[in-house]
């Protein structure tokens, strides 16, 4: 069965393509790219031709950092609802963190997640295993076992790997499988009690601050450990200018150090805690930082220091969030707003090119995690995202496929609407 996507603007940084090109998919892989591919043959063999005029066609988007909450907290999200949200948001694949209940530190949890993903069929799911057993930060989890079940990286995300010796061993051991160790960089003592970035706004609001140094210190230590161990180290949701500098320097020294940033850290700052009147939907970990930090992250997108954008989609039930700011759980959701936010606020104003955005949301994550996708080069798996760059949307959490509603972007008007995903050559149908 073949599928011809005609008339769209095809953007693929791996082939340096950006133009009106047709895309022919056969047997689940990219067969051919070219101008004005002939539909006759496709139609004759019972294939489908799809008109993509006015749409952007890119390698499938991958959100490399989300929380699906299954198993254990299905009242917040499930594999099915989370992947439906991913598909609706234009994602063909997601990587889900291990802090479920129980923790994904073993084959059976990994297989459960993969089984549910298969059943739902909305997007590829790449589980990330825990670094330590039970995310207790003490003993290494059975990484080989998890990798054989399908885990693509390890992380104790939600918590840092605080113990330096454990971090060192994780970086060493993960090299057997050529997978990255993803760090949630947070010094638990320095950030203790903190509920927002420490700075002018925490001072004004009287909220306990969480200094940027709590992140920087962990990244600095880990870069030094990586230098000795030679492993692959990835910083999750990097949020400070100084941590970004540490990554930049590590890269310059040839270390295999990478990082991701979130749309909210790229677009929002700590001031929003005041402007929103203490809205728990602007509380996340790491916290929204200062304007200087935000500008540094944008610069990191431009100069290539940042390898990926990921949402850190962290669903929480309305009742859990509808409490005092200090008591609310950390985290916001992002799968259904990522694309529009980044296209409208980063690409449209000309901060980065569309091609660079595709790199950050597709090629980069695919390469980092060593998973299929990230390219539309002939022979690649046919994971494709289509979106309408002109369509205007107003963010309305009520319409989300996600089970949760905790977004700080409610009511934002943006341009850029996902119109469909194709996974392995098959157009994804998701609940409307």
């Amino acid at each position, binding site marked *: 069965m073949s599928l011809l996507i005609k008339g769209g603007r095809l953007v693929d940084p791996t082939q340096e393509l950006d133009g009106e090109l047709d895309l022919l998919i056969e047997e689940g892989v990219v067969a051919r790219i070219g101008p004005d591919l002939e539909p006759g043959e496709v139609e004759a063999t019972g294939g489908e031709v799809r008109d993509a005029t006015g749409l952007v066609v890119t390698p499938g988007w991958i959100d490399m950092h989300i929380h699906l909450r299954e198993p254990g907290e299905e009242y917040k999200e499930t594999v099915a609802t989370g992947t439906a949200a991913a598909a609706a948001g234009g994602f063909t694949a997601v990587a889900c963190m291990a802090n479920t209940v129980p923790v994904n530190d073993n084959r059976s949890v990994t297989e459960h997640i993969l089984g549910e993903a298969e059943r739902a069929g909305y997007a590829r799911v790449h589980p990330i295993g825990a670094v330590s057993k039970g995310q207790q930060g003490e003993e290494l989890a059975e990484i080989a076992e998890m990798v054989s079940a399908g885990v693509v990286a390890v992380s104790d995300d939600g918590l840092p790997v605080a113990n330096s010796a454990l971090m060192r061993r994780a970086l060493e051991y993960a090299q057997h499988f050529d997978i990255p160790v993803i760090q949630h960089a947070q010094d638990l003592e320095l950030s203790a009690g903190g509920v927002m970035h420490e700075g002018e706004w925490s001072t*004004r*609001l*009287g*909220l306990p601050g969480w*200094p940027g140094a709590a992140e920087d210190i962990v990244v600095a230590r880990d870069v030094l450990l990586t230098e000795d161990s030679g492993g692959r180290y990835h910083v999750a949701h990097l949020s400070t200018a100084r941590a970004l500098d540490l990554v930049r320097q590590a890269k310059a020294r040839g270390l295999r150090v990478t990082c991701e940033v979130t749309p909210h850290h790229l677009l929002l700052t700590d001031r929003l805690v005041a402007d929103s009147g203490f809205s728990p939907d602007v509380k996340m970990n790491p916290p929204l930082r200062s304007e200087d930090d935000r500008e540094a992250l944008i610069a990191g997108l431009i100069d290539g220091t940042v390898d990926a954008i990921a949402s850190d989609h962290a669903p929480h039930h309305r009742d859990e969030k509808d*409490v*005092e700011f*200090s*008591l609310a759980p950390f985290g916001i959701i992002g799968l259904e707003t990522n694309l529009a936010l980044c296209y409208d606020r980063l690409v449209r104003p000309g901060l980065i090119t569309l091609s660079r955005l595709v790199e950050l949301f597709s090629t980069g994550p695919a390469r980092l995690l060593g998973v299929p996708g990230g390219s539309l080069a002939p022979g690649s798996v046919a994971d494709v995202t289509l979106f309408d760059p002109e369509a205007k949307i107003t963010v309305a959490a009520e319409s989300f496929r996600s089970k949760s509603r905790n977004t700080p972007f409610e009511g934002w008007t943006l341009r850029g609407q996902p119109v469909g995903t194709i996974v392995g050559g098959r157009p994804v149908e998701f609940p409307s």
Partner: protein
Amino acid sequence: MSTEFHWSRKDLLGIAELEPEEITAVLDAAESFQEVSARAIKKVPTLRGQTVVNLFFEASTRTRSSFEIAQKRLSADGLNFSVSGSSLTKGESLVDTALTLQAMAPDLIVIRHAYPGAPQMLARRLAAGVINAGDGAHEHPTQALLDALTIRERKGRLDGLKVAIIGDIEHCRVVRSNIHLLTKMGSEVVVAGPRTMMPAAIAKLGVTVSYDLDEAIADADVIMMLRIQLERQSKMLFPSTREYFRLFGLTRARLQAAKDDVIIMHPGPMNRGVEIASDVADGSDSVILEQVSNGVAIRMAVLYLLAGVRQAVA
């Protein structure tokens, strides 16, 4: 009518959002209410039939008593709704508490809460007027207003004064409201305390920062001493009360650096011998008890103004 000024707020959540005219209006109204407290019959019927709930999530005998007396003098029906224990323990959520209260149709709610923003949360959900009686280290507007009234009475003005605020600038609940109020009204504010208790970027609030008591109180017209919470020792913020007193305790000898007519304030309760020596606390410069009586007048004024707006809207 001397001005076109109209009070239009349903809630008093903080000083940060007030205009100078609004601050002056509360202070002026409070001056009239002082007269009520001086009468033999210390009661006026103004808020007859108005229900005021004192919702205290933290114990605060002083603030609550002050609000209660203010309510009684205005003939309001005050109801104490104390939520014992910390909110961290699993209890009813603030939202549910709010809805429960709403069902009782109160006119005003006075809230004291450990966490910043809790009064805002209530105000967004309730038709009742909300008065912030302290939300964590965020704001404590009636305390700042009563301090300002005390200063204005003694100095005749607020502008052009040098006010030194000494102590735990980071955690003390009265600091931010006082800084906002005094800077809005034209005072020069110096904050001083140990570096471990000085919040980030405090200078952005328009104050001068000092780490030296003597420097901070030099030529001061007003010195506000803050309460040191002794449990902070365990948080590595200062090694001992003895050492704190040595660095930042106000003594008669050190007071020489201030102006001759300096006044000494303290929001209470005091730790004698920790932040302030007894002879200073009880000395002729001290206006600490005036602060307490002015607290009642300020709270009467605030209750009166907010109740009026609520009636006008209803």
